[in-house]
């Protein structure tokens, strides 16, 4: 795919804009690489991050979790795989951290085949490492993955144990102490999902939130790609929405601020999203620059063509 548009036989004879227009796209790739790697190295060395001002949708996520009384049950669906972890892992980490700090009882499920492994890692990094007092089965449980996408959601609506017959340790659902009394999805006052696509937040709204006779509150974190599609549901069906790494950074800064202890710096693993906003800034500027240059070429060519 490289040499196809790399043609410089009579490059000198062409006006500047033609040459620029036919520039090998690998130069653009290189620019993008520099725009992202530069800030990563700089932030990695200096440890500085940019300030975040949380928007309404992100504040709503924080408040929704914050207002739940301690020991409430929350259903957390990890609907992404490592391919999207760059965007979504910081969200999952912060969401679990806030829930753990609030002493909510967390039930993890996954509708993506690799989601179970992601949930497992998140549990390890946040709960086991930093909240070792929380006990599996009493305070949190990972129910693993189930195939079937929407049909699993449909089953969750009426029978939780049928949808997820065992947890990832092999314990039958009916023997798990914290799930005593959980019959169906609506027994959870709050549903939290982190979603990378299909099945994800949209399907949760369609198959669970809308179909539930009882009102279930729903907050979600999603990739930048799916965020625009979820805005029509906000704030009626989706109470709080974290869109892309920016949403993650906003929410992360809120959670960090709420859990900050004087004199103790926040653990660096809880600053992941905010660190990634640095490369984001430079890369966005590069994108804007590229679009502007592309259009300058376009108009220069148009003028030449018209003259």
């Amino acid at each position, binding site marked *: 795919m490289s040499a196809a548009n790399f043609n410089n036989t009579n490059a000198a004879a062409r006006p500047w804009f033609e040459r620029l227009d036919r520039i090998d796209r690998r130069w653009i790739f290189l620019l993008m690489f520099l725009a992202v790697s530069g800030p990563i190295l700089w932030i990695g060395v200096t440890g500085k991050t940019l300030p975040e001002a949380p928007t309404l949708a992100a504040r709503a996520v924080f408040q929704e979790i914050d207002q739940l009384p301690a020991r409430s049950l929350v259903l957390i669906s990890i609907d992404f795989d490592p391919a999207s972890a760059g965007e979504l892992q910081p969200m999952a980490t912060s969401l679990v951290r806030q829930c753990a700090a609030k002493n909510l009882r967390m039930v993890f499920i996954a509708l993506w085949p690799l989601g179970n492994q992601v949930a497992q890692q998140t549990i390890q990094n946040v709960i086991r490492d930093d909240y070792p007092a929380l006990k599996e089965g009493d305070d949190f449980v990972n129910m693993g993955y189930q195939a079937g996408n929407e049909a699993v959601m449909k089953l969750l609506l009426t029978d939780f144990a049928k949808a997820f017959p065992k947890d990832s340790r092999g314990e039958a659902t009916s023997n798990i102490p914290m799930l*005593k*009394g959980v019959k169906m999805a609506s027994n959870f006052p709050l549903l939290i999902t982190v979603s990378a696509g299909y099945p994800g937040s949209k399907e949760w709204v369609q198959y669970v939130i809308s179909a539930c006779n009882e009102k279930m509150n729903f907050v979600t974190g999603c990739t930048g790609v799916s965020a625009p599609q979820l805005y029509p549901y906000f704030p009626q069906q989706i109470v709080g929405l974290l869109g892309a790494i920016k949403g993650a950074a906003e929410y992360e800064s809120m959670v960090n601020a709420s859990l900050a202890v004087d004199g103790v710096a926040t653990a660096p693993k809880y600053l992941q999203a905010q660190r990634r906003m640095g490369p984001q800034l430079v890369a966005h500027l590069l994108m804007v620059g590229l679009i502007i240059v592309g259009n300058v070429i376009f108009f220069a060519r148009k003028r030449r063509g018209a003259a």
Partner: protein
Amino acid sequence: MRITHKVPRRIFTNQSWKCIATFLCMAMCCTRAFAFEISGAISESVAPVTQIVTAQNASAPEHVATQNILAKNVLARNAPAQDTNAPLVEPVNAAATPAAISAAIPDATPVRPLFNREKTALFLWIVFIGAAVTVSVWLAKSGRPIKIRRIAALEAVDNAVGRATEMGRSILFVPGIQDMDNIQTVAGLTMLGRVAKTAAEYDATIQVPTCRSLVMEAARDTVRASYLSAGRADGFSADRITYITDDQFGYVANVVGSMVREKPATCFYMGCFYAESLIFSETGNAIGAIQIAGTAESSQLPFFVAACDYTLIGEEFFAASAYLSGEPAQLGTLRGQDIGKFAVGVLITLGVLAATILAVAPSSAVISALLYGLQKVLGG
């Protein structure tokens, strides 16, 4: 464009009987249950919420009552959290815990109503859409021509296939990355049928890599049928329709790799796409292929719109598939959908007017009743 699909003018074809019968069956099944509940639904539209709670309590004592308490507590989010959510909090008073409550449920099986009243509006909507589609399909089958507005991307399909033949290169058709249960995939395969037929006529080779094994089977059937109907059954080769892998990026890596190696002259992307839309269309751009895309995934449309030569946006994709198939069933469905859209548009307009008048003159009882009615129609 005007489709003159001439079916012999027989009003009640076999097909139409079948669909009417099925529809009536469905309607009858439900109206029995529905008749019991309709009076309740009407009274509900007048009565405040609390009455429903009591009404249901009568029939389903413990279960429903519990559920309503839970629901109301969650609803009352603005009130001080500590009190309202009390039943959700773990032990203080054992009797009030959800565990205790639901432990009592299995024994006392509640008497269930025949029809879920809260879904009345939803049910009526589905009946309405079903009726609109059935009637439109029936009309279309009875020979009434259906006009479809011009769709630019469609007119480009034949040219694009012709170009590939002239250049002596292959055509790539990607039917999305979802399974046969996704309607976009089905629409994509309808498009494939047409593209393959044109390709068979022009004697161009067509490559179809698929992401699901079921899609591969269906695509093979479709292409085989197209080659047959073009009278070139010998030209069909099942090996060009391959299954790669279920994994999104495994699939993308393979398709993009083969695109760079084989340099197809024309690429079609018709179906359900996610992140791979841009990888495909950028790679297609780099190898200088003509690209025509169609998807209903709105997140991927910007890339197709920007990078492809022609794009079928959202529903346009379904419309194009219906048009290309030339089947009265599909064209009738399109008309049925338009009727639905028109109804939604009118409802929104009425609702907005009512809401506006209500905002200006809050005391207007008639308008507030209208607004309430509209909200009910939409299940709000």
